[in-house]
């Protein structure tokens, strides 16, 4: 789906919701930048893209909309950050396993990480489909 069609779809399906306008701003932000610059989008990045001072409920709703399979604009990924601030990106399979079992195994030690939710953080990347529709790379 072209970027123009994506934006039209957002405006139609979520008409009247504040998050819809934020989605359009985020899409414009992504469209205006090369894929090299968009390899890791945090909640803070997307709040800025949405022109909001902080990650409020509208921003979270917008992110939810953009990551929903219908639109396929953003993919959700996960980063584990241990107590030594070492980072390990989870594969899609590992992330799915954590969601399914509620357990997480430390990639280095192989031990279960208690209270892993405090250490696993979502981040976002544009989907391959969206990047293919962008023409500015």
């Amino acid at each position, binding site marked *: 789906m072209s970027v123009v069609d994506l934006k039209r779809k957002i405006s139609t399906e979520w008409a009247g919701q504040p998050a819809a306008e934020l989605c359009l701003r985020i899409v414009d932000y992504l469209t205006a*930048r090369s894929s090299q*610059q968009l390899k890791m989008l*945090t909640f803070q990045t997307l709040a800025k893209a949405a022109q909001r001072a902080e990650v409020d409920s509208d921003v*979270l709703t917008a992110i939810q909309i953009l990551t929903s399979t219908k639109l396929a604009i953003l993919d959700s990924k996960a980063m584990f950050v241990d107590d030594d601030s070492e*980072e390990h990106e989870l594969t899609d399979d590992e992330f799915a396993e954590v969601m399914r079992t509620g357990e997480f195994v430390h990639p280095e030690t192989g031990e279960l990480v208690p209270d892993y939710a405090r250490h696993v*953080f979502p981040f976002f990347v544009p989907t391959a489909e969206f990047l293919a529709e962008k023409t500015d790379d």
Partner: protein
Amino acid sequence: MLASDNMISAMRRRVPWHVGQKILAENGLPRSMGWDRTVKSIAENALSAEQEALATNAMKEHILCGEKLVQFFSLSRDDVASLRAAALALPIPESEFQKAYPSLLAEADLRKAPNIPTLVARENGEDGVGLIFASVRVVTVREELNVGDLGDEAADALSDFDEVVGVRNIRLQALDVVWIPHEGASVDTRTDYPKGMHSDVAYVAADRLREAFNAAVGYEALVMPENLFPLINSMYRDKDEGHVVELGFGTTTKSLKDEKMRGRNSDLRKEPYHIGGKGNLQTEIEPFRISVAWDRSIGPKRTSTPELSIHGNSRIGLSDNPIITAAIVRRCMGLADFEHVRSRVNKHLAAIAE
């Protein structure tokens, strides 16, 4: 039993030398190369009564503002006025800490001293009232041991080891402060945080200080400290706000950076490598850690360089609700330095709240 007969020995136990030598010079007090020689020289040539008074005043100022973990509490002006009145009326119980203040108890006496904060003094100055609470903190120090010094038997038993490390628990006397200004609507707590102390220890101490203060005034006066995370961006992007000497940040190009300036009179915001890196980004960097230093003239040939650090980590940077509840303030010589840092923090907090 006091640590020593003069205030310089007490200062030596809590003031870093690079700050201490400026304090000594500013007050016209004798100094040599380093604390050991300075203390030895003063032991041989005692301070005059006037010099001792100057040292005592300097020590009191350093207790109020030197090497602290600081939390800020926004209240109403009426609440601050009530707290000020309560603070001025609080009785100060007798204790060994209180008798020694502003000097410190001898290290041997710290074994018997309480580790919960005890109110020992009140300083009512031009800008505000400081309530001083004393307690004992334990810092764990690891030292490599020379196996040869342990005797033949021990050397044999440990011969398979490449290193032998001893762990020592050192007791420090902390003097923490609750500061209630004469003007304004912000109270702050200042917990001693010397280099080498783990941040967890300092944060627990900050909680205990707040509990002790609330218990002393009889109600939950100080509850939620201000979230200082927004200050990181606010101060970084204000090019007139001191020198940025350290910045930790993430980029949307999937990198993590920790950049530092060598020396405190240079500004990372103007450093070519930092500018060039940002110039190649089409997105903004996302700071989660900052240290800002200010140059303050304190005489014709002397400056002090108080420094504020807000130390998050990449976890906080990734969070959807990043919260940092304390800042680290270092290198303050006295109240004027700390008041400068405090005023800058409050200015940015007020701008963020608008």
